């Protein structure tokens, strides 16, 4: 059984159809990549999966459970975490508070000390900056904090939205290294990216979206450059 199963999803903003007939599945022990240019529907798809938007038709199952009617906090409780685009860390909260809020749900709260240790081991920089306000961190550190915060909820599946946006190549490399370590710890990883090259290199399976539809899917090793360009740009 797939970890995440999206079936025939249609989402509208008023009269505008943002997603049409999206079907995708994420298996266990996989890094799955969802690619697409600006306006392809990636963010809409994520918002729908995490419960912030409701689909008009179609269904989303997570770990066998139907989650599309649930609210965002219930979905987090089931073990699906999102590292949002633009980090969205709490700038008036300290680094420690930002992490603790990640383990807000009762299930995660019980093991929060253990989780905190894991996060600090993954990103020692966060431990150094524990008492600082979120707003004083650099872009890369904020991204680490956003990832750490998502890990605090003890997710089984973690979605990274534009993890490399606006960061230096060194930092991006560092973060992708962390993504691989997260996968090794047994979590399922979904990467939503514009950085095609790097995410195709990392992923076991990829979907390319364009204008709200899936244009290409499969193992990225089998993709030809021609196919990717066509699916991505619509050329």
């Amino acid at each position, binding site marked *: 059984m797939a970890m995440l199963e999206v079936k025939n999803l249609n989402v509208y903003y008023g009269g505008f159809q943002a997603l049409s007939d999206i079907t995708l599945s994420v298996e266990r022990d996989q890094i799955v990549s969802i690619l697409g240019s600006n306006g392809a529907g990636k963010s809409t798809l994520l918002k729908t999966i995490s419960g*912030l938007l409701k689909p008009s038709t179609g269904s989303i199952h997570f770990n066998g459970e139907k989650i599309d009617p649930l609210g965002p906090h219930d979905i987090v*409780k089931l073990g699906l975490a999102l590292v949002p685009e633009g980090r969205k860390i709490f700038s*008036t909260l300290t680094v420690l*508070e930002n992490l603790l*809020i990640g383990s807000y749900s009762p299930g995660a709260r019980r093991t929060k000390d253990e989780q905190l240790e894991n996060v600090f081991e993954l990103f020692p920089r966060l431990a150094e900056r*524990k*008492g600082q306000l979120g707003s004083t961190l650099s872009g890369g550190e904020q991204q680490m904090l956003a990832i750490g915060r998502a890990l605090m909820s003890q997710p089984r599946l973690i979605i990274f939205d534009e993890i490399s946006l606006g960061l230096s190549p060194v930092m991006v490399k560092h973060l992708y290294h962390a993504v691989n370590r997260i996968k090794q710890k047994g979590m399922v990883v979904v990467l939503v990216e514009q950085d095609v090259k790097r995410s195709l290199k990392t992923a076991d399976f990829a979907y390319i979206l364009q204008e709200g539809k899936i244009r290409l899917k499969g193992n990225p090793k089998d993709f030809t450059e021609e196919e990717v360009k066509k699916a991505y740009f619509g050329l």
Partner: protein
Amino acid sequence: MSSNRIRILLAALLLIALATLPFWATRYMVSILLLICLYMTLASMWNLLAGYSGLISLGQQMFIGIGGYSLAVLSMYHGLPIFLSVFLGGVISVLLAVLISLPIFRMKGVYFAIGTWIIAEALGICFSNWGYVRYGMGLFIQPAYRLSMSTIYYAALVLCIGSIALIYLLLRSNLGLALMAIRDDDRASEAIGVNIFRCKFTCFLLSAFITGMTAGVLYLNTIFIQPFEAFGIGWTVKLLFIVIIGGLGTVAGPIVGAAVFVVLQQYLSEYVGFNLIIFGTITISVIFFTPKGIVGTFQEKLGFEIFPIRRR
């Protein structure tokens, strides 16, 4: 001595002074501190909503009225013990809060403010047309005649210290963390698993409960309750003044604000009519020049918090 031990020592001295006050202070001083305690509690509850939960209520007077009338009706008409009536006033306030939460929580920001105000006004009109509570003429709460000033003072002191301790613990709990996150970015906190409605609802009920009980003690002191005064917007205006000059969203703000307000009120009561102009001028000046209030400004300048609630 570490700053923590100095803090504990000062707090202990203050507590002893407050606890023994009726034995060494004048009756006038006790009555002033009684008022400060009551306003502190009411203002802390308004601050919990406006300063921490983002709920600007202009209708706290609905719980003041309900608390006061519950005390009057239960203790006089039904012969219940006075302090049980005060407690039940809090319970009935919670019931009212639950009842109105369905429509009121669909409103946001300024609509929530107006909505709460309208409900309080409507309740005032209902009570002034209700023969059971003698219409607009009001009620004298006769059982309260027997109570001494120091008994009422102790009740107010217990409520005040209890509610400040409760707020402090609440803000240091997970709920407090969630409230801070919601204040920072509500969409992001929702996406991370915070149930925004439940957090705000909890604070709303707590605020109703303690405001209702405090109103009971307040009317033990005033003795006379009348609908347009009890359900009047004047209460929330006072609380707003206290919290703004003290410091919105700080635990110590309402404490300092209430002390300043009650003392000012005593001195300004000679100048009827002018006092409101002076209160208004002070509030506007504070909003313009030190928007964080007395406590907020001091915390920023000195980096010292009386009630530290942050995790570092």
